[in-house]
C-alpha cells in the first residue's frame, strides 16, 4: 500500500515517477544539447592561420583556412592593417598552390630542368646535377671577371632571401650587379624620398587615409591595383562630406570614376602640373611659412664648374651637377614660367582646374597623396616624386595625422626586402650606399669581411644589366621569383639579350616567359610553402608562416641561395670571412631574420627594427619600423605595434624626443624642397608615331599574370588576348571598330591586339595592360630611363595604330 505524503499529496510511487519524468526531461534536454553541439557545422576550414596575401604591395593580412592539409578558404584579416578588406585576387588565393599542377596538371615546376642549347628542349635533372652546372658556370665566369655575373631578384622574394642574395653577390662574389624588378617599379619613389628626406620609405601610414580630407591620387589606378586601400578611401570620403578625391590620370580609369575632380592630363605631364600647383601655392599665399622656416630648405641642381669656369665633367663624361640652396623668393622666381595660364594648355587641362586643386591641396585639414607607376615609371620619375614631397612640405601637409606623401608599393616585398635590405645596384642594407666608404666599411665589419672587400663602384642597374648581357659582358644571370622576359620595356631586345647569357631561373612555374628562355630552371616554393618576412607600403613587416610542403622537389629560394653559396665557396670564388666561418652562415629564415634585425640597429642605419623578434612577428599582425626594442609599442602617445608615423613625436629615432618634428635623415634636420625644371619628354607624338601609349593593370590579374592566369575565375574575368583601349575619336578616324585587331608599333617593336573602344583614354592616347603574354605590349614600350633612379619610362611611348588587315577576333 502506497504511503501518502501528507504535505504534498503524492505517494512515493507518484513522487518517484515525477522525479523520473523531470530527470528524463533533463536528460533529453542535455542530450539534445550535446547532439546539437556535435552537429554545429564547423565551416569550410578546420583551422585558421594568420598570413599575408601573395600579390601586391598593399600587404593585406589574410586568414588562411586549412582542412586536410589543404587551403580551403581565405578571409581578410580583420586585425591586420587592411581591416579585413582584400581584393578578388586575394579572395581566391586558396587555389594558388594547387592551380597549375593539382588543378590542371600543367605549369608548376616540380623538378630542376636543364635546357639543351642545340635542340632548345629541356630535360629533367637532379638538384645535384643542376646546381653543379650552375655553380660551375658561375665559377668560370667569376674567375674571368667578378662582374660577369649578376643577380636579378624581385619584391616577391621574402626578406631573408633578398638579403642573402645581396650578401652573397656583393660580399661574397664582390660584384654589385644586384638589381631586380623594383628598379622597374619603386626606384623613383625610393630615390625621390632619399633626395628629400635623406632616407627612403614613407613617413606616413594607411591610417592617414582615415583621417585625410583631400586625397590626391596621381598616376595610380588604386580602385583596381590597390583596391583594399581604395575601399578605405571611399569610406573616408563617404563619412566626410567635405572631403574630396582628386585623381590625375590621362585615362578616365576606374579610380577616376569615383573622383570629385579628375584632371585628364596628357601622359607624362605630371611634373609640369605639380610645378604649376607649387606656383599657385607660392603666389596665392598658401605656404605654411612657420613649418617651412623651421623644417625645410629650398634647393636646386646647377652645373658644376671648375675654378677656371669651365664645366666640370663626371668620370663618365657627363656634365657634373651640384646642389645649391635657394631662398624662398628665388624658388618662387624659378617657378614663374609655370603659371597655370601659361602651362595649362600644354598639360591638357584648364588653368582654373590647377588653381582649384592647388587650393584644395593646401587648405584641407589633411591632404594625402598616393601614387604608383604613373609617376615612378617615367624619365622624370624622381623629379616628380621630389615635387610631390615639395607640395606637402610647402603647405605643411605632412607629419600630422591625415597628411602625408604616401607612395603605394607595387610588389609585395619591394618596400621591405629589396629597399630595406639594399638589394639594388647602388645600395647596401638599411639605406647604406655602395659609393659611401664609411657605409662599405661598416657593412664589411658586420659581414666579418676584410676591409676593402665590397667593390666601391656602382653595379649595373636593370637596363644596363640587360644591355651588358647583350654586349656579352655579363655571362651568367640568376633570376629569382620574377618574369623579366615579360616585364622589361623594349622587351624583344632584352629577350634576345637573355638568350645570349647563361640564364638560371628559380621560379614556381616553368611556363613563364622567362623560364622559357632559361638554361636551368630551378623549381621554387610558392607563398606558404616557405616561411619568412614580407614588407609593404607603410613600413610594416609581416610574417608568412609555412603551412604547406612544396610540391615535387621544389625548394625555397633561400635553400637555393644557401646551396649556391656553399658550392661557390667550395670552388674558391667567394671572399673569406675574417673568422674563417662561412659567409652565408645563417641558413634558416629565422637565423637570417635575426641577422637582418641586428644589422638594422647599427650605426649607419636609421631603419632600426631590432625589436621585431620572430616570436613577436608570429604573434602580432604586422609591426611598423622603427621598432628598436621588443618593448617598443608606442607611437604618438598611443599603443601601437611599432611606429605609425616617422619624423614626428613618437618616432624613437628622433635625436630630441621633445621636438614635434625632426627630419633626422638629413644632416641639418631640414627636408629639401626641390626645384625640378620641366624637360621635354623623350617620346612626344610625331607624324610617324602620333599616339601616346600608356600601360597598366586590370583588377583580376596581377603583374605578368604568372599566378593569376591559372585561376579559372580570374582568367574568365580577364580578356584574352588583352585589349588595346583606344579613344573612340581616334578609332573613328582609323575606321577601327570594337574587337578589330590593331597593330601597335613604336620604334622599339610592335604587337597586335583587339581594339577596345573607350572614352577612358584622352584623345591621342591608348592604353594596354601587360598581364597577357599573348599580347606582349612591353615589346612596344620605351626603355628610356630616369637619370637618377634609372627607372624606365613605361608610361609614355609614341606609337602608331593601324588595323591589322581587317581581321576581327571575337571578344572573349
Amino acid at each position: 500500500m502506497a504511503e501518502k505524503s501528507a504535505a504534498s499529496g503524492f505517494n512515493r510511487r507518484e513522487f518517484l515517477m515525477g522525479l523520473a519524468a523531470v530527470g528524463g526531461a533533463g536528460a533529453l534536454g542535455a542530450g539534445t544539447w550535446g547532439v546539437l553541439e556535435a552537429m554545429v557545422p564547423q565551416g569550410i576550414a578546420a583551422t585558421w592561420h594568420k598570413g599575408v596575401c601573395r600579390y601586391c604591395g598593399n600587404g593585406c593580412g589574410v586568414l588562411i583556412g586549412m582542412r586536410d592539409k589543404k587551403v580551403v578558404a581565405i578571409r581578410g584579416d580583420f586585425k591586420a592593417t587592411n581591416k579585413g578588406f582584400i581584393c578578388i585576387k586575394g579572395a581566391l588565393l586558396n587555389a594558388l598552390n594547387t592551380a597549375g599542377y593539382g588543378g590542371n596538371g600543367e605549369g608548376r615546376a616540380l623538378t630542376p630542368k636543364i635546357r639543351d642549347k642545340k635542340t632548345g628542349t629541356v630535360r629533367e635533372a637532379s638538384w645535384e646535377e643542376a646546381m653543379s652546372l650552375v655553380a660551375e658556370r658561375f665559377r668560370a665566369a667569376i674567375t674571368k671577371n667578378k662582374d660577369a655575373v649578376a643577380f636579378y631578384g624581385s619584391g616577391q622574394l621574402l626578406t631573408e632571401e633578398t638579403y642573402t642574395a645581396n650578401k652573397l653577390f656583393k660580399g661574397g662574389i664582390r660584384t654589385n650587379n644586384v638589381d631586380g624588378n623594383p628598379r622597374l617599379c619603386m626606384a623613383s619613389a625610393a630615390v625621390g624620398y632619399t633626395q628629400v628626406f635623406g632616407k627612403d620609405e614613407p613617413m606616413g601610414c594607411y591610417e592617414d587615409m582615415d583621417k585625410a580630407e583631400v586625397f590626391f591620387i596621381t598616376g595610380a589606378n588604386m580602385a583596381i591595383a590597390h583596391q583594399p586601400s581604395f575601399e578605405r578611401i571611399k569610406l573616408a570620403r563617404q563619412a566626410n562630406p567635405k572631403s574630396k578625391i582628386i585623381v590625375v590620370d590621362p585615362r578616365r580609369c576606374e579610380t577616376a570614376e569615383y573622383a570629385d575632380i579628375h584632371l585628364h592630363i596628357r601622359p607624362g605631364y605630371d611634373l609640369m602640373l605639380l610645378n604649376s600647383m607649387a606656383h599657385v601655392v607660392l603666389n596665392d599665399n598658401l605656404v605654411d611659412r612657420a613649418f617651412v622656416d623651421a623644417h625645410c630648405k629650398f634647393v636646386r641642381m646647377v652645373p658644376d664648374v671648375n675654378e677656371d669656369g669651365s664645366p666640370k665633367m663626371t668620370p663618365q663624361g657627363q656634365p657634373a651637377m651640384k646642389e645649391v640652396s635657394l631662398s624662398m623668393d628665388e624658388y618662387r622666381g624659378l617657378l614663374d614660367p609655370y603659371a597655370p595660364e601659361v602651362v595649362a594648355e600644354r598639360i591638357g587641362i584648364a588653368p582654373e582646374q590647377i588653381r582649384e586643386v592647388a587650393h584644395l591641396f593646401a587648405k584641407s585639414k589633411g591632404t594625402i597623396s598616393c601614387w604608383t607607376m604613373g609617376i615612378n615609371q617615367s624619365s622624370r620619375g624622381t623629379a616628380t616624386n621630389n615635387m610631390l614631397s615639395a607640395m606637402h612640405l610647402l603647405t605643411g601637409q605632412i607629419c600630422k595625422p591625415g597628411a602625408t606623401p604616401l607612395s603605394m608599393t607595387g610588389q609585395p616585398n619591394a618596400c621591405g626586402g629589396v629597399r630595406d635590405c639594399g638589394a639594388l645596384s647602388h645600395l647596401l642594407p638599411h639605406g647604406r650606399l655602395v659609393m659611401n666608404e664609411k657605409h662599405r666599411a661598416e657593412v664589411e665589419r658586420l659581414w666579418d669581411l676584410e676591409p676593402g672587400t665590397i667593390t666601391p663602384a656602382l653595379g649595373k642597374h636593370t637596363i644596363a644589366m640587360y644591355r651588358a648581357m647583350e654586349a656579352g659582358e655579363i655571362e651568367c644571370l640568376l633570376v629569382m621569383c620574377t618574369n623579366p622576359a615579360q616585364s622589361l620595356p623594349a622587351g624583344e631586345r632584352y629577350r634576345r639579350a637573355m638568350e645570349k647569357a647563361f640564364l638560371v631561373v628559380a621560379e614556381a612555374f616553368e611556363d613563364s616567359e622567362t623560364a622559357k628562355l632559361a638554361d636551368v630552371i630551378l623549381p621554387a616554393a610558392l607563398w606558404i610553402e616557405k616561411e619568412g618576412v614580407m614588407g609593404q607600403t607603410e613600413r610594416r613587416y609581416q610574417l608568412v608562416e609555412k603551412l604547406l610542403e612544396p610540391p615535387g622537389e621544389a625548394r625555397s629560394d633561400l635553400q637555393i641561395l644557401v646551396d649556391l653559396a656553399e658550392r661557390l665557396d667550395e670552388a674558391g670564388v667567394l671572399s673569406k670571412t675574417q673568422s674563417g666561418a662561412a659567409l652565408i652562415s645563417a641558413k634558416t629564415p629565422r637565423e637570417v631574420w635575426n641577422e637582418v634585425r641586428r644589422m638594422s640597429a647599427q650605426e649607419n642605419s636609421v631603419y632600426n627594427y631590432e625589436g621585431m623578434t620572430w616570436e613577436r612577428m608570429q604573434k602580432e599582425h604586422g609591426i611598423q619600423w622603427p621598432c628598436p626594442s621588443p618593448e617598443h609599442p608606442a607611437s604618438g602617445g598611443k599603443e601601437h605595434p611599432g611606429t605609425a608615423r616617422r619624423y614626428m613625436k613618437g618616432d624613437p629615432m628622433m635625436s630630441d624626443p621633445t621636438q614635434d618634428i625632426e627630419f633626422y635623415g638629413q644632416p641639418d634636420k631640414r627636408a629639401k624642397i626641390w626645384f625640378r625644371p620641366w624637360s621635354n619628354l623623350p617620346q612626344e607624338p610625331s607624324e610617324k608615331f602620333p599616339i601616346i601609349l600608356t600601360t597598366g593593370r586590370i583588377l583580376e590579374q596581377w603583374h605578368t599574370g604568372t599566378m593569376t592566369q591559372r585561376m579559372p575565375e580570374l582568367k574568365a574575368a580577364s580578356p584574352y588576348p588583352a585589349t588595346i583601349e583606344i579613344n573612340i575619336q581616334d578609332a573613328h578616324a582609323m575606321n577601327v571598330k570594337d574587337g578589330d585587331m590593331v597593330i601597335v608599333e613604336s620604334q622599339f617593336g610592335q604587337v597586335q591586339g583587339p581594339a577596345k573602344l573607350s572614352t577612358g583614354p584622352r584623345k591621342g592616347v591608348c592604353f594596354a595592360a601587360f598581364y597577357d603574354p599573348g599580347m606582349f605590349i612591353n615589346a612596344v614600350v620605351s626603355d628610356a630611363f630616369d637619370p637618377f633612379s634609372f627607372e624606365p619610362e613605361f608610361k609614355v611611348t609614341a606609337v602608331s595604330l593601324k588595323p591589322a588587315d581587317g581581321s576581327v577576333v571575337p571578344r572573349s
Partner: protein
Amino acid sequence: MTTTKLIFTFVGFVALPLGAMALASYQVFEGVKEVEACGSCHVMQSKVFDMKSLDAEGNPLPVQDEECKRGGECKAVKLLDKDGKTVKLRDRNGKVVKDKDDQDVEVEMLVKSRSLAARHYSKGWIADKQCYNCHTDYSFAGSMKAKGDGFRHLARYITGRYEEPIVFRGYYDNNNCLKCHGETEKYLLVPSHHAIAEPLATSQTSCLNCHGPAHADHPIPLSYQE
C-alpha cells in the same frame, strides 16, 4: 461527463494552454527580430552599439581628431551627443568645452562607424529589424538549424558555459547579402561578381573580403591560432 464539460475541460486544459504557448512562442520568435532583443544580450550588445555608432559603453563615438596638432597629441576630441546628430567638443579629460558665453560647443556630427552594419543602419537602407534582415535564419519561419543553435545558445547561457569574446562557429551564408543585392543593376554590372558566382553562391568566398567587416569587432573564426 457531459459534452459541455468535455469541451470546457478540453478548452481549459488543452486548447487554451496550447494556444497560449503557441502565441507566446510566436511573440517571442517575432520579438527577437527586434534590435532591442539582440541588444539585450550583453555579448551581442557591442554589435548593436557599433551599428548605432556608439562606443563600448553605449556612449557616443569620438569623432575624427581634427584638433590634433602636429606631434600626434590631441588637445581635444569630439564626442557625439546621444541624438546622433550633433557632437560636443570635449577636452582630453572628457570635459565639455565651453564657448565665451559658457555654452557647450557643438558641431555637426561627421564620422560614424564604417562597418557594414553601421552603414546599412545610418543610411537607413533597412527600415527596421536591422539585425534580423541580415541574419534571416532565426525567428518563427527560420530554419531548424537556427532553432537548434538557439537551443544550444540558451543551454550555454543558462549553464554559463561560454567565454568572451564569443567566437564564430560555422560560416555566414552569402545569400543573406545576395537576397537584396544579387539582382540589382549595381551588383550585376561588376564583372568580378560573375567571375566568382559559384564560390559566392556556396559562401566559400565571403562578400566581406571585398566589402569589409560587418561589425567593428567582427567575430573571428573559432580555430584561429594566434
